[in-house]
């Protein structure tokens, strides 16, 4: 009997420990190991940082060549003063890891197609997708190319050494919270991970064509060329390009030549290329947000009160916690720079130094094309080109799967890029076509070097030399210097394309459809010290139609922020940094300014019910600002949305295949030209042909009904309706910041949408002593158990800024604004 009791109680104990030491499936996710997670000596309680923490630390490492002093100010911004380059990047790597280790590793795991390794088989298709577009291949190419250059190699290797110094000093209980939640451990950091991170950014900023090229092909085939052209126009009437209209361009060295059969084989509606069907496929590729973009501008001393230039930049990307950005100062005896860095990479990416300031916006140029290729057989060893069978490179990658069998992924690489879609993956249509992706990001780029050089740049020539290293994704680099120069250049390795090349999926059996070459970098759009006294960019088309190269489909280029930025800068004089902050956070809706009169012109007010009249009246009297409390902004948004649905929603819904939603300017510019009836007919109503007047009435009725429900729920105020939130990277609600009362939106300088927007805002006044203001939608610490996890979020919502503390080493050592100190020595 005693044995029975003993074994019974032993079994229960073992079972209890087993159950509490195991991850239980919860739908598609898994619980943490409860016992471990709750254990106060090992689990999450260890991440509950003191509310008045100390970040003082003395780091010893034999790898260091000199001494590094790091002073950390009260915003938890570290100021790094190193004796040499190696030590500076070592310290940066260490500090990034100290505050953002989990995020750095998670983002590079995502880029490397390794999420299945930590999250299980649910992520397998996402991983296969990233591997097939060439993220790992591209990172390897970039690393091989970059390591030929000592500046990059020293920085990236030193950075990795710093990250690893931090990791190796971690006790098991000190690992970041999310590792404990998902139950895995940090691994060694490598230089390749920095390149993977850069690939991640390249995908985010130039990867939309994995989907849009297929959708545009479907749209062309479905609507027929003429209707397609109307719906997705190449020309934007109201465009105010980065380089002002009328600027002359030099004759191109070499023009690309379109294949002779392009009209029949490529542009016709019944080309044999592809129909992209989402319904049959189990996986929809994650497409980067169409509004991944930014604003930047610089005003020269002729327009400022102080006579010194001011430079501004706010990049618009997904809003996440921990933030993509980390604020810091980095200095050695040869340079001193401050701004936003990427946890995962060395250097300051957007910022300033003692002599200049710089910023970036996305160029949005088309650098990713899809081809349909023909393989001889399922082995995919030989593919057809110009009638001959050519050998492909057979790249094999292994995907590890948590609690599952490893998956070996075959990625054949052809002259038309790597195989993206085929029978085994996301069957794009019933005809068994194989689609490859060709992308400049995988062509062996210089990675971070442009930023390393910008950090050291002293003048315009240094800036030019620095950015000439940048290839992908194309960026508009804005520049201002204390010497008084302002400039902007659209920089990248851009393909010299014949008209419409790569707008659709191209035949990948014929070398004529290959890229014929790149645009010489000296022909990239560029401007220095213009008479108007400012340069700016907001992802719009960089140039007018006189530019000698094809820029790609207009859908790549948002139109309206550029218009309002240039208008405001033209009007402004005696500018102060405060004016610039006010402008960066402006909620004025220039799209609504143009669209509202067009709507009203076609609206028969006499036909409205009293409540419709009241709400439309509110929209008419609205001040055109998408401020948090404006009701008119919500009404306008709903009416315009409903109008787009009424005009082309019916045609799009009738398509078997997925189509791109046309851009708003397409409809607005037709209405402004009196051609609004195009597609206004509702194809579902037989025997009746609706006009734009009918469509506007349908839209108003639908919108008003919707607003009435919103009123019931108290959700008509713009910020409540828009409901901006900053998501934790694992989308855990209690770790996110929800329901933020911030205005702005699409087409507005303050481009804050629901989960996307100007996550980093910076204004730099280049007076003798640099005066800079920054704020971002996050906090310096990635630890959700830290008071510094979301420090800046409220400031960011309110549109206020923090003044950057930009001191020399001696001044920093004695500054009373520095709260903590880290020292590094060997």
């Amino acid at each position: 009997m005693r044995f029975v009791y003993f074994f019974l109680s032993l079994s229960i104990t073992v079972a209890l420990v087993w159950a509490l030491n195991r991850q239980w499936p919860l739908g598609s996710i898994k619980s943490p190991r409860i016992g471990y997670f709750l254990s106060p000596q090992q689990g999450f309680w260890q991440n509950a940082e003191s509310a008045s923490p100390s970040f003082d630390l003395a780091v010893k490492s034999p790898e260091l060549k000199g001494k590094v002093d790091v002073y950390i100010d009260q915003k938890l911004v570290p100021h790094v003063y190193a004796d040499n380059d190696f030590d500076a990047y070592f310290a940066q790597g260490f500090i990034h890891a100290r505050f953002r280790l989990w995020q750095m590793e998670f983002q590079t795991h995502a880029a490397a197609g390794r999420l299945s390794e930590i999250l299980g088989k649910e992520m397998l298709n996402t991983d296969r997708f990233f591997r097939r577009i060439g993220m790992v291949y591209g990172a390897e190419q970039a690393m091989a190319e970059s390591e030929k250059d000592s500046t990059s190699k020293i920085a990236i290797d030193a950075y990795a050494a710093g990250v690893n110094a931090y990791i190796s000093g971690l006790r098991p209980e000190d690992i970041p919270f999310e590792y404990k939640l998902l139950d895995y451990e940090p691994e060694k950091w490598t230089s390749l991970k920095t390149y993977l991170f850069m690939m991640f950014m390249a995908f985010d900023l130039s990867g939309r064509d994995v989907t849009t090229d297929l959708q545009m092909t479907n749209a062309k085939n479905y609507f027929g060329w003429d209707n397609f052209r109307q719906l997705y126009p190449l020309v934007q009437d109201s465009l105010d390009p980065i380089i002002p209209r009328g600027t002359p361009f030099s004759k191109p060295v070499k023009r690309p030549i379109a294949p002779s059969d392009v009209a029949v084989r490529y542009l016709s509606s019944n080309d044999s290329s592809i129909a992209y069907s989402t319904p049959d496929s189990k996986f929809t590729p994650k497409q980067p947000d169409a509004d991944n973009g930014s604003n930047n501008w610089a005003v020269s001393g002729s327009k400022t009160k102080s006579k010194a230039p001011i430079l501004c930049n706010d990049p618009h990307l997904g809003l996440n916690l921990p933030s993509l950005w980390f604020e810091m100062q980095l200095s050695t005896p040869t340079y001193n720079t401050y701004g936003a860095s990427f946890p995962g990479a060395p250097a300051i990416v957007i910022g300033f130094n003692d002599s200049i300031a710089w910023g970036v916006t996305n160029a949005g140029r088309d650098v990713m094309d899809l081809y349909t290729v023909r393989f001889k057989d399922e082995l995919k060893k030989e593919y057809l080109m110009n009638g001959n069978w050519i050998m492909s490179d057979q790249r094999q990658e292994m995907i590890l799967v948590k609690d599952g069998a490893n998956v070996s992924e075959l990625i054949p690489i052809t002259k038309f890029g790597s195989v993206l879609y085929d029978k085994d993956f996301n069957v794009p249509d019933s005809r068994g076509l194989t689609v490859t992706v060709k992308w400049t990001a995988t062509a062996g780029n210089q990675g971070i070097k442009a930023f390393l050089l910008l950090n050291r740049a002293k003048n315009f020539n240094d800036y030019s030399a620095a950015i000439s290293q940048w290839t992908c994704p194309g960026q508009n680099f804005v520049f201002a210097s204390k010497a008084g120069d302002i400039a902007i250049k659209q920089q990248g390795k851009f393909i010299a394309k014949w008209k419409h090349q790569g707008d659709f999926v191209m035949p990948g059996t014929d070398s004529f459809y290959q890229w014929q070459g790149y645009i010489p970098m000296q022909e990239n759009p560029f401007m220095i010290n213009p008479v108007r006294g400012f340069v700016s960019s907001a992802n719009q088309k960089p140039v007018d139609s006189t530019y000698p190269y094809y820029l790609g489909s207009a859908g790549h280029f948002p139109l309206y922020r550029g218009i309002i930025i240039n208008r405001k800068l033209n009007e402004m004089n005696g500018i102060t940094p405060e004016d610039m902050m006010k402008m960066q956070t402006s909620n004025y809706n220039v799209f609504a300014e143009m669209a509202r009169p067009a709507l009203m012109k076609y609206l028969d007010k006499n036909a409205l019910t009293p409540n419709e009249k009241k709400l439309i009246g509110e929209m008419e009297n609205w001040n055109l600002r998408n401020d948090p409390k404006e009701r008119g902004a919500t009404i306008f948004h709903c009416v315009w949305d409903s109008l787009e649905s009424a005009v082309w929603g019916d045609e799009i819904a009738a398509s078997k295949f997925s189509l791109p939603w046309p851009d708003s300017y397409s409809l607005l510019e037709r209405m402004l030209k009196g051609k609004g009836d195009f597609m206004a007919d509702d194809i579902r109503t037989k025997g009746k042909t609706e006009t734009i007047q009918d469509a506007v009435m349908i839209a108003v009725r639908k919108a008003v009904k919707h607003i009435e429900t919103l009123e019931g729920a108290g959700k008509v105020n713009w910020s409540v309706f828009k409901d901006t939130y900053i998501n934790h990277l694992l989308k855990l609600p209690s770790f996110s910041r929800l329901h933020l009362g911030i205005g702005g939106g699409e087409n507005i300088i303050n481009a804050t949408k629901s989960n996307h927007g100007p996550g980093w805002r910076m204004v730099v006044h280049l007076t003798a002593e640099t005066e800079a203001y920054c704020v971002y939608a996050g906090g310096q610490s990635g630890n959700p158990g830290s008071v510094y996890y979301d420090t800046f979020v409220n400031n960011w919502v309110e549109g206020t800024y923090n003044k950057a503390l930009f001191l020399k080493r001696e001044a920093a050592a004695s500054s009373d604004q520095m709260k903590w100190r880290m020292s590094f020595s060997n």
Partner: protein
Amino acid sequence: MKLLTSILLTAYLGYVVGVYTNFPWWFFVFSSAVIALTIRQSAFTTFFAGFTGMFLLWFILALIKDTSNQHLLSQRVAPMFGLGNSSLLLIVVTGVVGGLVSGMGALTGYHLRRIFRAIISINLE
């Protein structure tokens, strides 16, 4: 006195074992079992002492962390366990988990002791 001693000893040894964070979190089952092997009490009292010692340790350690953290993290974690925004409930759950494992470890130790005693008494006969 025996009860108090075994509770305090459970908590103390549980803490000491826990300092070595390379060991698994549940390593204290051994210390709790050894205490039960050593200190003779009834089955219920043994379980109670094992439970209470570890409950108190985990409860207090979590409470200290949570207080100096001003409940920041617990407020974010509690909703994941369906505990609303209650930091205190999360601390109690933490204590109960540690307590249950420890109590069962102690009870197993108690039964092992009974077997040993039986063997010893048989040998004596």
